[in-house]
């Protein structure tokens, strides 16, 4: 059924159709519409589920860890400070190999208090063992959330579905919402690989000394390495039922591009328009939308960006003392490829500052007009 939905509700609709059984969350703008909708569904009986109103985000993640360990499908949502507060338990969820799905609304970190779009919060969690998928529009948010449950349960790793604060969470767009029966065919009932079992009493999370810990960590990485193939299979099944597919990355006009811009989230949507316009002007430009950030699609990055003359990465985030984070990871992926293009890093749109077409076009010009990157990251549009 085609309907007009706010990005937040694209999430909650997917969670409803995924037949999640236990949810727990603490409100934080701009995630609140997600959890309010889910609370309504539980109260009205629309969802056969429990919503635990905990007293902090740290407790929200702890509650879903407890529930997932008990063998049910779980979900939570947060943003910014809340995600930061969960940090300890993000590591816990992945190392406990729990298939938790979380919607994470990219919002700036304080101080100063800023509730608007910024990617530093989710990227600061890139080492926690969570799969991370960045969404461009409402339809993709819906589809990615459903796919996230399949993926998480396939590899026993938690998945973070990331969407821009306000630009996506609070923007209304047409979204095709399928019926429950078809979704059930894509996402069957949760069958946990591991859960607490009275008939076979075991202990989860025991002490694990030097003789065994390293292998446990390696197992997490092995699971991450299975993700690309599993995800492709999942997307193929999804496409067969719903006729939509996104891939871990989406190259647009990259084949003959001399300069490729790398973008994520709603900026990718703006960038499509900019690429079209620049191409009309005769520029040999392309864009690569990065969707899957963890595991990092190294092979695809090398293959698609490798042949370009220059790469211009747009980061709506920053790692202080280093550079924009997507640029950092792309440089790392390219450095071992024989002959690779210089990576120009641009910082734009922090704390909700808009990234209009003019800014992206300006970034393109800056990359084109520079022989080589003068700094690791160029901050675009700073006020004097």
């Amino acid at each position, binding site marked *: 059924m085609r309907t007009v939905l706010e990005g937040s509700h694209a999430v909650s609709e997917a969670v409803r159709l995924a037949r999640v059984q236990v949810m727990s969350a603490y409100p934080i703008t701009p995630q609140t519409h997600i959890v309010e909708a889910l609370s309504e569904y539980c109260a009205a009986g629309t969802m056969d589920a429990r919503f635990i*109103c905990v007293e902090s985000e740290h*407790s929200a993640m702890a509650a879903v860890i*407890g529930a997932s360990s008990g063998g049910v499908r779980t979900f939570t949502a947060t943003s910014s400070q809340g995600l930061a507060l969960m940090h300890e338990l993000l590591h816990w969820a992945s190392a406990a190999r729990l298939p938790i799905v979380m919607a994470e609304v990219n919002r700036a970190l304080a101080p100063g208090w800023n509730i608007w779009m910024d990617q530093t919060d989710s990227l600061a969690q890139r080492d926690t063992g969570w799969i991370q998928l960045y969404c461009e529009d409402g339809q993709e948010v819906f589809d990615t959330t459903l796919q996230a449950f399949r993926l998480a349960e396939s590899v026993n790793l938690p998945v973070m579905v990331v969407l821009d604060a306000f630009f996506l969470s609070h923007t209304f767009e047409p979204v095709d919402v399928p019926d429950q029966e078809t979704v059930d065919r894509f996402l069957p009932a949760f069958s946990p690989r591991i859960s607490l079992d009275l008939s076979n009493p075991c202990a989860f999370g025991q002490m694990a000394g030097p003789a065994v810990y390293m292998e446990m960590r390696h197992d997490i990485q092995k699971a991450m390495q299975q993700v690309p193939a599993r995800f492709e299979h999942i997307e193929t099944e999804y496409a067969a039922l719903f006729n939509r597919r996104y891939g871990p990355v989406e190259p647009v006009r990259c084949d003959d591009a001399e300069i490729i811009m790398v973008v994520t989230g709603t900026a990718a949507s703006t960038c499509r328009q900019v690429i079209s316009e620049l191409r009309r002007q005769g520029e040999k430009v392309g864009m690569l939308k990065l969707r899957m950030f963890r595991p990092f699609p190294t092979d695809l990055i090398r293959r698609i960006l490798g042949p370009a003359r220059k790469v211009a990465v747009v980061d709506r985030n920053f790692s202080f003392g280093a550079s924009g984070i997507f640029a950092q990871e792309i440089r790392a992926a390219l450095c071992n490829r024989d002959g690779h293009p210089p990576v120009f890093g641009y910082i734009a749109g922090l704390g909700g500052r808009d990234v209009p077409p003019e800014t992206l076009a300006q970034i393109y010009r800056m990359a084109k007009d520079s022989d080589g990157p003068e700094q690791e990251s160029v901050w675009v549009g700073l006020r004097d």
Partner: protein
Amino acid sequence: MTQLNIPDEDYMYPGHVGCPGCGAAIAMKFALKAMGARTIVVIPACCWGVMAGQYPQSSLKVPILQTAFATAGATASGLRAALDMQGDTETTVMAWAGDGGTFDIGIQALSGAVERNEDFVYACYDNEAYMNTGVQRSSATPFGTRTTTTPGEGWKKSRKKNMVEILAAHRIPYAATASIAFPEDMIRKFDKARQMKGGTRFLHVFASCPTGWRVPSELSVKIARLAVQTNIFPLYEVENGVNYTLNYRGDRPAADYMKVQGRFKHLSDADFLKIQQMVDEDWQLLLRKVTHFSGN
């Protein structure tokens, strides 16, 4: 000699790594005798996080879910919801935490769970300091104690938090103190808690720590008994936050309990006088709330 009437069946294997005389080990043994096989134990960071066993072993015959330090109340809430959603109303979730994970780092999650009246048993085995990390003070450490973070003249000058009173103020359905030196009383209370489904039940268990308290290990139980007999750790129950039942009336001076412990040996006669006054004051406060008496 007194005959004790306690169940034979044990849910704890022998050979755990607790210290000789560990009160927490005794506490778990008695608690599980009451809780039985249909129990899942949630253990945050604490001595029992180590005593539960090293992978791939477990020291208990029931399932264990270890969890991060601050999270016992929240993790137990989530686990309970999962069991309910799968139609399991028989299994009891028991959070088993030390004083750190209950009074300090874990208090938020516990308070939240109790306010929501989550359906699980929460047992705090209180050895009155962060023992697992080497005897640092907690808010359960009594006035007068030397610990590694209240050393020398910096011995603890603040009072022990009263967790039962804090939870009584939440109108928790059932909160009680218990002691390893009074096994029948303790087992009765755990059994009562197990059966009171539908809300949160809290048990504050006095679990002596010979290692941290600088007491010979063979005095572990005797010390716990003295704490009750001196009214320093009264045995009582609170129902719905308002109905107080006292289980034991003690009549020995605080010094009987404190002078045999290394952690108090720096205290002067004046300090003991002050401490006795504090104990008497707390005892009178408790007596004013008591409506029933069930003990000696």
